């Protein structure tokens, strides 16, 4: 399958990946919004972009799959 997915992470805890990184399914990427629970990748792919959304105080992680 080709395409991309966007994942939303809490900005407080940063992001463990950067654009260009390959990620595996289940790999921890960051923390879920409003909690310290790990945000994991639902699929394998390549991180295309990590952008900070100031309005929501969150990171948007785009993964190409």
């Amino acid at each position, binding site marked *: 399958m080709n395409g991309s997915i966007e994942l939303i992470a809490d*900005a*407080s*805890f*940063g*992001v463990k990946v950067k654009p260009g990184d390959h990620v595996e399914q289940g790999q921890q990427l960051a923390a879920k*919004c*409003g909690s310290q629970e790990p945000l994991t990748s639902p699929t394998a792919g390549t991180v295309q972009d*990590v952008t*900070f959304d*100031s*309005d*929501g*105080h969150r*990171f948007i992680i785009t993964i190409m799959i």
Partner: protein
Amino acid sequence: MRTGLVATSTITHATPASFGSHVESRSMEAKIAEHLLANKVNVMFGGGKAFWTPQSTQDSLRKDDIDLLVQAGKQGYATVDDGRQLTTVEGPYVLGLFQQKALTTVSPEPTLAELTYHAIRLLNERSKRSFESNRGFFLMVEGSQIDWACHANDVHDCIKQTLLFDEAVKVAVDFAARDENTLIIITADHETGGLIIKGDDVNKTGHINWATGGHSAMPVPVYAYGPHSKIFTGVYDNTEIPQKLARLLKIKPFPRKLEK
């Protein structure tokens, strides 16, 4: 005691929200706006008009038909949305929302220093005139976008936003120096980005590194000026700051138990 909130974020963003609302999540900005109004914060300056207008209004971020600007007017608030109105507005309750979302922090929008100046003007004058005189005021001013610049690891914006905050600090300290009866506390709730400057040439941005895009565990400074400033010296948990302020303001008990 009169109260005020000033921020370069939406006035319903997490920091100003924590001073005048109580909700489950920082994302509930429409509900936070209702709380700020219900709690009768005397002066509110910032962005986020979109959370105060009904969903039928262009750019609204509400999902209901509540018009908080109309409600604010009924509650006695004067509302302003540009720098010209800001310089002349008067009244015990003033709501200034200068953008639909966060402030741009560029001209012609009023600067954080100007917002701080007029917030102090309004709060101080009304305190002096008020029948319940000499009860003073509490004002929280946030340079909201320092954190944002550091999350984005943008050193140029980090410096710009810090300098804008520094100008606001000067306005507050100048007032306190004249007034001689005002305590100023300058601090942060956390550091963001873990900024480090490597080597001896700070003019080269290549010598600047960031440890993270998130918040760090770095201790933050607390600067205090004015009466009782000495109780803010030392190393302590940040939860002690509101406790120290509550003691000075003779607020008991603190923290209060939530009403059910």
